């Protein structure tokens, strides 16, 4: 059960702080849980855990491909690995190792990619993952999650410990918009209806959830009733709720901090076109590479704000 606390404000704690605390609890509570990192511990709030838990926490250094293979091996001998690096490297730099040594070999590994999309800010194009959702979705039987805020991170990350197969999670290590109360709980594969509506449905993930709620408030004043769904599990998609809202609103907008090629919008559009055809307008990065800048500037450059969501909603409604 979740409680919405959204009022447009930022979270009090950065994602990295919460990740550090949560990872520590996970390894404390289960001796089989292990955590691997690729020289990004100081950036994700975990530096020092390798000294406190030398049998469970391994600083691998800068060798992502090897690290993914090692995680596969750890799973094969009964450990429960969590692996973290920047999302760009988690996805692109070690894709074949993830595909073969983890997913295809049916090992059970959780991979956490930090700095999704424009949140990688000053690290620029080489570090800016717009494609990680697409790549991880393309791995058979994978689970793909984007933590909406750090309340979700704290609640959901420990529960993934015994999830079979490959689970990929996108994580913002800075302060995002606060969406959920700290005592909220979440179920992978089950989307959250944050706001009901009858004219259009906005399906969002990650930082676009806050933007969608903002857009829905503005649209309401203009006489358009928009439902907002937090599709934090991008795969497997919660088809039931999409079907329900297709029958109810007959128009969709999707919003993601990622390339629209192969992302959340692509998943929603594919499902709808094969079940309940209706207009779907995708808000997201339009097949571009990243660059440096403040997240706010980049969100504007790539069209990731409530403004684009509002325009998309009007277009979707007009196409009904």
């Amino acid at each position, binding site marked *: 059960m979740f409680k919405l606390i959204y009022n447009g404000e930022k979270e009090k704690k950065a994602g990295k702080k919460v990740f550090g605390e949560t990872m520590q609890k996970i390894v404390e509570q289960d001796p089989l849980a292990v955590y691997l990192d690729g020289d990004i511990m100081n950036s994700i709030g975990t530096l020092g855990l390798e000294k406190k838990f030398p049998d469970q926490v391994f*600083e691998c250094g800068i060798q992502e491909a090897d690290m993914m293979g090692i995680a596969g091996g750890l799973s094969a001998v009964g450990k429960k690995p969590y692996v973290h690096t920047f999302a760009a490297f988690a996805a692109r*730099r070690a894709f074949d190792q993830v595909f073969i040594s983890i997913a295809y070999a049916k090992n059970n590994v959780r991979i956490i990619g930090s700095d999704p999309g424009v949140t990688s800010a000053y690290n*620029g*194009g*080489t570090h800016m993952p717009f494609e990680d959702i697409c790549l991880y979705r393309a791995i058979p039987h994978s689970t793909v999650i984007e933590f909406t805020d750090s309340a979700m991170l704290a609640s959901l990350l420990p529960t993934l410990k015994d999830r079979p197969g490959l689970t990929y999670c996108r994580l913002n290590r800075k302060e995002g918009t606060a969406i959920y109360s700290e005592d909220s709980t979440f179920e992978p594969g089950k989307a959250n209806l944050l706001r009901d509506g009858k004219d259009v449905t906005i399906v969002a993930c990650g930082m676009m959830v806050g933007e969608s709620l903002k857009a829905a408030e503005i649209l309401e004043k203009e006489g358009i009733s928009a439902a907002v769904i937090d599709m934090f599990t991008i795969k497997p998609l919660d088809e039931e709720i999409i079907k329900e809202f297709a029958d109810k609103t007959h128009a969709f907008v999707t919003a993601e901090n990622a390339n629209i090629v192969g992302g959340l919008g692509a998943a929603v559009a594919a499902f709808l076109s094969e079940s309940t055809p209706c207009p779907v307008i995708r808000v997201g990065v339009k097949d571009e590479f990243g660059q440096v800048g403040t997240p706010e500037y980049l969100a504007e450059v790539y069209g990731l704000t409530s403004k684009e969501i509002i325009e998309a909603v009007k277009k979707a409604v007009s196409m009904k």
Partner: protein
Amino acid sequence: MITPLKEFATDIRIQEMIEFKARGFGHTGGSLSVADCLAALYGGIMRIDPKNPQWEDRDRLVMSKGHAGPALYATLALKGYFPLEELKTLNQNGTKLPSHCDRNLTVGVDMTTGSLGQGASTACGMALGLKHSGKDARVYLILGDGECQEGQVWEMALFAAHHKLNNLIAFIDYNKRQLDGYVKDICDLGDLVAKFKSFNWYTTMIKGDDPDLIRQTVLDVQKNQGDRPGMIVLDTIKGAGVPQIENIPLNHHTNVTPEEADEIIAQLEEFKRKG
């Protein structure tokens, strides 16, 4: 009195600090430790023409530890590739000077880097291509020591030796630190010189804080490498030349206030005057 090359290295550090001051933060440690190497290369070793940055017969540099972009940008601006004033746009919205080197944005940058390990292979590819087109241009490659944990570096090392790429000279900025701390605590590299020797590279290790020594060593390697690629391990300090930054234990990426930057710049100017 300091030598012209040492003065160039100090100017590079000063311009780096101007870049960091304008943005307020950056990859200071690893950008400072390569200043002497860049001074040696761009201060006479490399065959370049800043007025003709795309000259086909030029020597190339690949800054594989791409986060040291600010050091390369300072060097290029000082050589006249673009105005010094532009350095203040480091990492500003819409800049041509991003954290990591980008050949499509910055005049004079020969290869896009930032995903560690990859510059090793692109440098190798450039050397292979130049050699097989009968060109005598050379390729210089700068690797981080932490970066050498990437398997890709060692794949390249095998390939370059096998293909006798004697137009390739690589450096390792052996500053002993990476992002999370000391390389030896994280994933020890052991004896880098012995390793590269065993990969059949002409290898040597020198103090990395003296651009005149680096220059002489490059010339020696060129003379002696025969049909092997050359490797110069540079024994450096992360943050070199700026004690305030050397002394920060985790100095991979640091904040720089305008006051700190001004104090450091004054210190470096003083060093230029007095040595």
